[in-house]
């Protein structure tokens, strides 16, 4: 993630990359234009105005809080730490330093398919949302079992916290206000101490529901979000990415057809939009830059959004009776 952020910062006319902290300096062959350090304290003590924190989860809250306390604006990758306590610590620091901007990397909100789907929902042309259904999963590649993401002490959770949190954030973005949570977790395939599959059902006080299958055993990268509305449906599939591994990003728009018992149609005419250009990383960093330069409030991917997504993850963990989270709770 750090590499992507670096590329975007390099391209941005209002940003100048001053210092990079990277333990593996082989990753940074082209380091002529910035200072390369191995100790994050050197970044914290430097005079930079803004910091992108792209580290394993256990490092996030400490680094974020230190940066905020020194008056540095922070863009922080998801998830916002390992626990609810982590995001609360960051929010407390934010409250004590109201001039500092804190934003989180819920990048999926800025994908072209998601932006279009949201604008269709907001336009009201298909009515209110009835339900959401998400599938988000990984192929589980060669090095997957060795990833720090599967180590509880480093990550704080499994696939639901690592990847599923994006979908939960989208659920909040489209619907939100969930008050009931049911979750089943399993580590049946990989046998990590954290989950490799999560099945989640959510409901809010308006009788709207959402269901998510977050998985590290799909054997292919997969992203699908269905938005079921009163007058139609949206199906968002694939995500534009550098490797194209999640498939072409498409949005299917279908309008409900009124059926009677004798002439069930069930297969309405659809419109499919193919997106070719992913500007999500640029849009996200533009937003961050805009709130800093124009002293605006962070309203998208804010610490409140981060808290809400993290809260859903931990409500699922609490509901699941999965051993490691039970232990943590006790």
């Amino acid at each position, binding site marked *: 993630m750090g590499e992507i952020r670096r590329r975007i910062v390099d391209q941005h006319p209002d940003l100048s990359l001053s210092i990079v902290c990277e333990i593996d300096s082989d990753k940074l062959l082209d380091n002529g234009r910035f200072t390369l350090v191995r100790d994050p304290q050197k970044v914290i003590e430097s005079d930079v105005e803004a910091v992108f924190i792209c580290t394993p989860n256990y490092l996030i809250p400490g680094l974020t809080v230190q940066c905020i306390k020194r008056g540095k604006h922070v863009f922080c990758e998801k998830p916002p730490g390992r626990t609810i306590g982590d995001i609360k610590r960051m929010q407390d620091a934010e409250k004590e330093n109201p001039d500092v901007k804190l934003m989180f990397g819920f990048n999926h909100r800025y994908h*072209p398919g998601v*932006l*279009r789907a*949201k*604008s*269709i929902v*907001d*336009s009201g*042309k298909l009515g209110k949302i009835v339900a959401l259904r998400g599938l988000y999963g990984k192929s589980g590649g060669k090095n997957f079992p060795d990833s720090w993401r599967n180590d509880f002490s480093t990550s704080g959770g499994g696939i639901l916290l690592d990847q599923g949190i994006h979908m939960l954030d989208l659920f909040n973005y489209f619907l939100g206000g969930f008050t009931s949570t049911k979750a089943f977790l399993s580590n049946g395939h990989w046998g990590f101490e954290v989950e490799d599959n999560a099945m989640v059902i959510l409901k809010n006080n308006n009788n709207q529901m959402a269901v998510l299958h977050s998985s590290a055993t799909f054997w292919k990268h997969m992203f699908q979000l269905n938005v079921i509305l009163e007058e139609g449906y949206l199906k968002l599939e694939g995500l534009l990415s550098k490797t194209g591994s999640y498939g072409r990003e498409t949005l299917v728009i279908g309008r409900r057809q009124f059926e009677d018992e004798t002439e069930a149609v069930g297969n309405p*005419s*659809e*419109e*499919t*939009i*193919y*997106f*070719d*250009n992913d500007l999500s990383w640029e849009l996200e960093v533009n937003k961050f830059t805009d709130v800093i330069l124009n002293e605006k409030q962070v309203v998208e991917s804010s610490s409140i959004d981060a808290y809400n997504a993290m809260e859903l993850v931990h409500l699922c963990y609490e509901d699941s009776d999965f051993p490691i989270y039970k232990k943590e709770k006790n």
Partner: protein
Amino acid sequence: MERAIVHSDLKKQEIQPQSLLDKYLALLDIDIQNIFHEGSLEAANCPVTGESHTRESFQKLHMKYLISQSLGNIYISPRPSPKLLKNFYYNSKAREFWINSVWPETRIARREKIIDPQLMWAKTFLTQYFGERKLLMAEFLANHWGYYEGSKDIFPSSEYKLTEILFNPNYLRKIFPNDLIGESDDSHFDAVFLFEALDRAPNPVELITEVHTSLNPGGLCFITCLLSSGFEIQILGQKSEIFVPPERMNLFSYEGMIALIEKVGGFEVLEFSTPGVLDIPNVVSKLEKIDDVPFISYIFNQRKNEELDYSFHEFLQLNRLGTFGRLVLKKK
């Protein structure tokens, strides 16, 4: 640059009943002879590149179409001046028939299957880029008030103006007596609509330049048009009934349209799609009259089935090979 694939149950008969179309074409034949006298038209080169080299030419209703050598744009030459074109729209018996007979007969289907979906398409982009705020919008070179009427339902809280109206505004004053009808002042717009306006523009480069000038930075321009690179026109050529003069003065190819936008400059193309649904039925209905496309005849005569139609339709749209085009431009 995104693209859309659209499936719809639109039938040609719903928007162009054959009896009305035949009468319209008969009147148009006379109008063209009466209004566009010898010597009143001006010779033109390719409206995008300015080149004079052509691949071929053909006549339709007494007017000459040329196909540009490099980009395959189809254009009328010699062509009417803007003043003469306006004269045609105001005084043509064919247009009068369209407004008084074709429009009332087809209004419901056109609103439901063409106009409202196109305005909703625009609304989705406008919601994405401008949120829910009140917008100032303009339609350029409108030749009827269907979109103006539709805008009242789709954009009830925004202002939709008509600029360079090509029909007699007295029709509009009669239908919308409470509206302030007249040429727009030189406001700057959040959105501009060119509903097949490029097709009938005597000078398309000038029109796109004018749109660029009149848009606010970040403003959006929505274009619908016919494309010479589309399946129907590529297969049927001059036998296609989808274009007649002088309404279709310019039919750009996919490449021609991109070149036009690049020539004017200052736009980002957000979408370029060819979401039409009539390419296949229009070609199939004329297969008997064309004899030099054996593979197409084989596909649609001997192998014809719904699944093939569906997948061929998807292929055309996915690869921007349909005859009806739609674009969204954003002013940089």
